[in-house]
């Protein structure tokens, strides 16, 4: 029993007593169950396990603090209407927005932020971190930190392009299917069925084996694979709008399909489509990361998170954390987008679970 362990339990028990005294049932339950869990892990893992829990709790508190501050910041700088919406955002969504914001900055200003170029060899292979290189060097002696910053630009940029294309394809086909109906609707529906009945990664592998792994090919293939999801959603959402009276009125006025889509249907189905864009981005991003990890995505020397994990994987057998950082970067962005989407879905559906 050293002073750390005594302080640890004193803090937890004190906090749970306070929570119980002030009738904060939820918080009390959480803290007290954490205390009980700590008993068990403390016995099994000893002091290191307790330290780990402390660090995790500290990081969580830090993240909560940052998201709270970021939300307040957004509320102040945005105009009245948006600020009102933002006030309802849970901390997780604020955290998601903060992460997305950070990634965007890193991606856009990559050449300014990164100390070295993405393909610049500056030291020996797998050199450890020093004052020059924040995270050490990779398998060819390039600066890991710079490559991660550039990766934000390359990996996310590619995923965004592919998602955008998938969206344009899917949304256009969906809107046309909903407005035109008939054989076009049927045909597109069957095509979507077929594409969706093959697992996406398998489909992508098949196509990449045939067309090779150039960037254009990857973008087109990934967009094709994920457009059926957008197609189905758009068709369903637009299908609900198409039967409205104002569409009938516009048709009677003699407006064409293109006008109907642009001026009547699209504005009335943006909310679910925006949420779908976020979700779709997550899928696309994970698929492209997976392909890069398999060595079939963005080709070297361009920095890309998925392939960086693969190239540096040998370091893991020496107990090094560095190869996990690009993988963590992928996970963090996907989580962040998911958090924001979760909130948007909740808001747009008015979903209040029982």
């Amino acid at each position, binding site marked *: 029993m050293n002073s750390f362990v005594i302080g640890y339990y004193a803090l937890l028990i004190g906090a749970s007593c306070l929570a119980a005294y002030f009738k904060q049932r939820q918080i009390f339950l959480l803290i007290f169950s954490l205390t009980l869990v700590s008993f068990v892990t403390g016995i099994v893992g000893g002091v290191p396990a307790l330290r780990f829990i402390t660090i995790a709790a500290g990081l969580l508190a830090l993240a909560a603090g940052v998201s709270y501050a970021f939300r307040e910041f957004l509320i102040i700088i945005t105009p009245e209407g948006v600020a009102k919406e933002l006030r309802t955002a849970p901390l997780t969504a604020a955290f998601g927005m903060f992460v997305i914001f950070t990634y965007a900055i890193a991606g856009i200003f990559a050449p300014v932020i990164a100390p070295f170029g993405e393909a610049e060899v500056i030291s020996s292979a797998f050199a450890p971190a020093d004052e020059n290189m924040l995270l050490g060097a990779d398998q060819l002696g390039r600066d890991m930190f710079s490559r991660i910053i550039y990766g934000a630009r390359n990996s996310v940029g590619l995923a965004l392009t592919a998602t955008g294309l998938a969206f344009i394809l899917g949304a256009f086909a969906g809107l046309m299917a909903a407005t035109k109906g008939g054989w076009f609707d049927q045909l597109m529906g069957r095509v979507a069925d*077929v594409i969706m009945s093959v*697992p996406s990664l*398998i489909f992508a592998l098949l196509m990449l084996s045939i067309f090779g792994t150039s960037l254009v090919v990857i973008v087109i293939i990934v967009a094709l694979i994920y457009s059926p999801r957008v197609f189905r959603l758009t068709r369903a959402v637009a299908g609900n709008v198409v039967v409205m009276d104002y569409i009938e009125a516009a048709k009677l006025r003699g407006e064409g399909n293109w006008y109907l889509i642009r001026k009547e249907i699209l504005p009335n189905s943006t909310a679910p489509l925006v949420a779908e864009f976020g979700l779709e981005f997550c899928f696309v991003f994970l698929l492209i990361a997976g392909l890069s990890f*398999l060595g079939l995505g963005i080709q070297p020397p361009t920095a890309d998170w998925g392939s960086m994990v693969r190239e540096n994987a040998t370091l893991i057998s020496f107990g090094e954390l560095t190869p*996990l950082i690009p993988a963590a970067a992928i996970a963090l962005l996907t989580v962040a987008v998911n958090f924001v989407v979760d909130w948007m879905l909740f808001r747009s559906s008015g979903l209040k679970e029982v």
Partner: protein
Amino acid sequence: MGDILQLVLKRLGLGLITLLVISFLIFFAVELLPGDIAQAVLGQAATPETVAALREKMGLDQPALVRYFQWLGGAVTGDFGTSLISGERVSEAISDRFINTLFLATYAAVIAVPISIILGVIVALLRNTIFDRVANVVTLTSISSPEFFLGYILILYLAVKTQYFPAIASLSSDMSFGELLHRTFLPALTLVLVVTAHMMRMTRAAIINLLASPYIEMARLKGVPPWKVIVKHALPNAWAPIINVVALNLAYLITGVVLVEVVFVYPGIGQLLVDAVSKRDFPIVQACCLIFAATFILLNLAADVGAILTNPRLRHPK
């Protein structure tokens, strides 16, 4: 009973047609190659004579449709032709690996299915408490992480730092079953983590949907104790969505398996596929894709049929 049988047969027929279309797609995708397979294998530097010779050897001088039916006929009987690189029979390269992959997927499923259903029900009962929110964040994080991230974290902490489990899942035929389970534990655990998160969320959603229905409220209002509401009223109706959730996630396992096999150097069909793709060994790519797609379609079909069998309302379509 006749109705159900007819309905199930109809679904099976639909699945078969889908599979046929997919096989068509897989075969003719390769036909889209600039030039043809022979040219792609030999490269730009090949002389026209060698290309012509290979073309004849592979039967490329016949029309594509004829070759498609030959290939399909072979595939049905388990003959996928020969590998372009090693010259080995594809069926031989695949058969052992396919069993390994099935073993891994089953291993993961056996652990994941009970855990996730139980956890999903618990979280649904605790909905809107702080535990539910924590579970939401944890499962969302697990879903959002690429499989290789989870895999390498497990390798780092359970294999490299503590050495509880081997980092590389090498298999040999003379291993005991216990040894086999131990060797393949980490890849299975990676799959479990991803699939459990998915299944938990879907189970939770299904149960919450159910608990909102009027007859549950009725049961509550007439004073039935909470556990009885769950066991007697909710659970019998929950089977349909739960079966659906399980089958869909097993289908998801199929894709996850490819990345996990590569991370753990597991001798499965997923790794074979990835190798074949980078070497452009088309017969193997086609065979693996067909197998994966067939499994995927089969599991989705199982989800459909399961839903029909457990939900009386679906048995009588309007």
